């Protein structure tokens, strides 16, 4: 018997420029998390930065590439030990308006046996980016913090977490 799932867990929309947005006490009742973000920054060419469970150590890795549709420029980034998941869709032209959006899939986030893999796609006007990343920790994910590499998150940026529970 199929059962309804894919529920919004929490939403935050910034009402002023803020240095970070945090979701804490995330429900452990789901299998995967999907985070939908539509954001801007107060400083141009700055992508979003995500840390898990307040972990600021060099416990993340990622592989990402991006392509600019205007210039055909492309690039990649593959830090093997870094302090968070960097969203580089803003690299080419992220302005101080809200023109960045992304969908982040955090897979099997509540398991306590394995590291956590995430996969995402993001856009920033002309730039398209895909990213696969890993948090090197077996703990269940209970909080997420978003910030900007330099500057603040722009007013009106929105962050929504959805949960999907497998049968």
């Amino acid at each position, binding site marked *: 018997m199929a059962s309804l799932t894919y529920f919004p867990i929490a939403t935050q929309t910034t009402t002023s420029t803020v240095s970070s947005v945090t979701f804490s006490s995330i429900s452990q009742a789901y299998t995967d998390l999907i985070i939908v973000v539509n954001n801007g920054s107060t400083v141009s060419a700055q992508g979003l930065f995500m840390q898990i469970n307040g972990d600021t150590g060099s416990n993340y890795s990622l592989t990402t590439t991006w392509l600019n549709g205007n210039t055909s420029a492309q690039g990649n980034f593959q830090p093997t030990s870094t302090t968070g998941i960097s969203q580089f869709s803003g690299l080419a032209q992220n302005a101080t308006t809200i023109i960045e959006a992304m969908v982040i*899939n955090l897979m099997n986030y509540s398991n306590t046996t394995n590291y956590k893999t995430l996969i995402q796609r993001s856009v920033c006007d002309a730039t398209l980016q895909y990213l696969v990343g890993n948090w090197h920790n077996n703990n269940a994910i209970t909080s997420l913090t978003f910030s900007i590499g330099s500057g603040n998150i722009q007013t009106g940026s929105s962050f929504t977490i959805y949960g999907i529970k497998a049968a």
Partner: protein
Amino acid sequence: MSPILGIYASQISGHLATGNFYSIATINPAGQSSVSFTSIPQTFTHLQIRVNYFGSDVIIPRINGDTGSNYSAHGWRGTSGALSGWNFYNGSNMQWSTSWVPTSTYAGVVIADFFDYTNTNKYKLSKAITGCDRASTSGGYDVMSGLWRNTSAITSITLPIGSGTYGTNSSISLYGVI
């Protein structure tokens, strides 16, 4: 949820159903070389399969048990090098490649959608995003399409792993979208 300073607490929503996404079945495939979703309900419009797994760097989906040369797939791959494209025609399966072998530590993931799967008037198209990052230069993702050149409704999906067996703690879940 804990409200954050600067954020209206009223904007923190509860468990509001989106209303069109259903869990159908989950397989824990550890130790098996191939698993299948069978008797897939025909009551949805689209299907999604979400995989978190260990083992080989590729899963090779087949539809309705069809092992003939009736599939094609195209994709682009992002790794530590430049973007690259790949394709194959007239294959005997689709292909979900995670670029690198997911170890017991670093899971490979797949999110695949099958569109209009009950329609009997057109070939069946899917898209998928896959990836695995192993905290080294061994990391990458694929974005791909897959086509099954058959107009039959999809009633089963078989998911052999490329080599060996699925690792411990692997999971494969099927969802239906109205």
